[in-house]
């Protein structure tokens, strides 16, 4: 009985290996699989586009640079610099700064906080600061005080928006952006 089963397993193996080899051969014949962009590349493109749909209250001087602070995500900073090397935001020069502590967050327009770090935002208050568009990328990011939170759903990068947080920071967000969000928290009649 036992012998029979083992014997069958041994006979089966070559066919299984064959299947595996066929797949491998197929993979190599086709070369590397299609190169889709990374999550950070798409998030960076979103960040660049968001600036066109958000109104900051303190109309900064047109000659002051548009500053994006990136907390704890070198990959995101790299993607942003790549994009902003050839694009301006609202006609302004841009500056991407990497920070690792809240104390280092300066008078930026956007603060992007890397996955896993959103809790830090709980200690950030609007008082005495310029209006910051807080952007996170983790489940529960809005609960931590973020305005826009990225979610990856079925290989697509999507985002959710908290209008309460936007209001707290004095930001107005256009209905076009809200229309693309998977979820808008605190939505009644506040569309800017």
């Amino acid at each position, binding site marked *: *009985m*036992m012998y029979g*089963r083992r014997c*069958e*397993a041994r006979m*089966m*193996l070559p*066919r*299984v290996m*064959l*299947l*595996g080899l*066929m*797949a491998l051969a*197929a*993979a190599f*014949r*086709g*070369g590397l*699989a*299609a*190169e*889709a*962009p*990374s*999550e950070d*590349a*798409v998030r960076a*493109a979103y960040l660049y*586009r968001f600036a066109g*749909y958000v109104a900051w209250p303190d109309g900064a001087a047109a000659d002051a640079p548009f500053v994006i602070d990136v907390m704890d995500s070198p990959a995101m900073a790299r993607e942003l610099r790549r*994009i902003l090397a050839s*694009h301006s935001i609202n006609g302004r020069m841009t500056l991407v700064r990497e920070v690792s502590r809240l104390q280092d967050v300066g008078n930026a327009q956007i603060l992007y906080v*890397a*996955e*896993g*770090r959103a809790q830090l935002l*709980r*200690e950030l208050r609007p008082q005495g600061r310029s209006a910051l568009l807080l952007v996170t990328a983790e489940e*529960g990011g809005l*609960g931590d*005080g973020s305005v826009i939170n990225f*979610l*990856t*759903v*079925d*290989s*697509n*990068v*999507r985002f*959710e928006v908290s209008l309460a947080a936007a209001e707290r920071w004095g930001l107005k967000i256009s209905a076009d*952006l809200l*229309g*693309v969000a*998977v*979820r*808008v*928290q*605190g*939505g009644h009649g506040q569309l800017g």
Partner: protein
Amino acid sequence: MHFPAHRSAATVRWLALGIAAALLGPLSCNATDATADGDLTAMSLSDLAKVEVTSVSKTNEVLQRAAATIYVISHDDIVRSGVTSVPEALRLAPNLLVTQSSASAYVISARGLGGNPTAQNFSNKLLILIDGRSVYTPLYSGIYADTIDVMLEDIDRIEVISGVGATLWGANAMNGVINIITRPSYLTKGSYADLGGGNQQQFGDGRYGAGVGDDGAVRVYGFGFHRGAMELADASGAGDGWSKGQAGFRSDWGLAQDTLTVQGDFYRATENVLNSLDGVLLGGNLLGRYEHHDSLSDLQVQAYIDQSEQLGPGGSSGFTVHTYDVSLQDALMLGSRNRIVWGGGERLYTYGITNETELLFVPASRDLTLANAFLQDTIALTGTVNAVLGMKAEDDPFSGWTPLPDARLSWAINDRMTTWAAASRGIRSPTPFDTDVQEKVGTEVFLHGNPDFRPEEVRALEIGTRAQPTDSLSFSIAGFHDHYDDLRTVEPNSATSFVPLYWGNMMRGNTFGIDSWASWQVTDWWRLSPGVTWVRERLTFSPGASGLLGTVQAGDDPGSHASLSSSMNLPHHLTLDAMLRYVGALPSPALPHYTELDTRLGWRMNRTVEFSLRGANLLHARHYELPAAAGEEITRSVIAEARCNF
């Protein structure tokens, strides 16, 4: 009977290879099929939302720093593996051992002591929660695997914690906790349907989700399946095929800082029983959860009701359990260093049992009330060192209040590496099966429940490291030493009369071992994920114990189990996934070690439609995962499936 069964298995095998070859064959020699971004910055927001991104394996940052052994099965893992049930999905976690005993029954365990069905010791030291609803049965603390179906497409992730999770999750989170978390309904808008079938099962699923007003979303789903019978030792049918239909909904309502979730599921299943009438399962649940998040606290209040009814062949035996549960949990920062989580809950079980003539519960019905209160403080000792101190007090109707303390220390050595250690205590509370049961031979009672049965206890020490040394490599390794006391034994009634026997608490001892896994992104398109768990058990009887059934009654466990998963993104929108799993030999009753292979080939025809072909248990036409006394032969199966998102 014999011959045709064998032949159909061979046919299935060749059919599988044929279809695989047909799918792989047309691959052209063209180089990459570039869907590469071009210029993302030129895209509108709604176009960006449709860009497919590479999902490079990565460790969830929050979990990366948790001071516990946690493996997360993602939505993607579930879809790409092609599994069709929750127990099969749990196999994807290397820190769990999942063995199948019949068409509808599985044994799920972590870190040993997975029970020994031939000694009536069932796997009862794990807790499974579906969206915060506990699904173990209060009758014996185990899991009825045929009652925990979830619409797999709607699962966001499954978090598998091995080790004691008692402080936050309570009793029976003794060797592990499994959290099945479904997606909020605002992430499942649109329609989904799938249809699949093969030699072993046929199924269909459907879901529709939509936004409601500005702040809400709802989805409804339904599915049905039939799973065919397994086989007996002589390769004849085990007559245990079963069918199930389930429907449910989830709705989420978001206000400024508040979320309200209401969800429910209802099912009915028919299970064939060899040479007998069918059994029936009926169940339903309704859950509401309110969450409030602000910069000071995260509050969660949850309530649910659950009804589960199981009727044996022809309704001659069975039981009904009603569960009513309320709980509250609040997390808040106290100063800048202390994050407090506190809460409590109360649960009422009411059950009624239709006793069989030789297996009785006396009394046949009870109301059981459980209560708990807990407090946990996560203290940031330095920027990189956290301490977690927790205490839960749990009151169960049989053993009263029990303290469940927990202390953990984690050190984030750098951004890529965390080391942690923990000491904790967990219990398995007594159940009616321990206290009320009477087993008879004819009219004579030969085994009697013990009203004084004490909780089974574990005191666990763990140490672990999680690291991502390079962008393409991550690993987790944890060593554990569990000291058990008051494990259940069978004792003679008194010195003068041997029977009836009764349950005692006269076994103790140690288990120690290692849970480990890694993930290696070999290339952009190929990921390999090995996992190994190794457990040694050293159990002894307390002085004066009968020694009946030996210490192996606590767990007929393999000394090790391991898996190797491969996940490939091939050109032409093909994906190929495979998992090879090895389970070591079982001691008594003995079962030789075995190796099995599951694979799935998927082809995304377009954004809407995907076809796939899956083979499960491919290496053997049939194999045992539990000894013949406790399980049936599990047969090879092949499934073709079409999935449609629209």
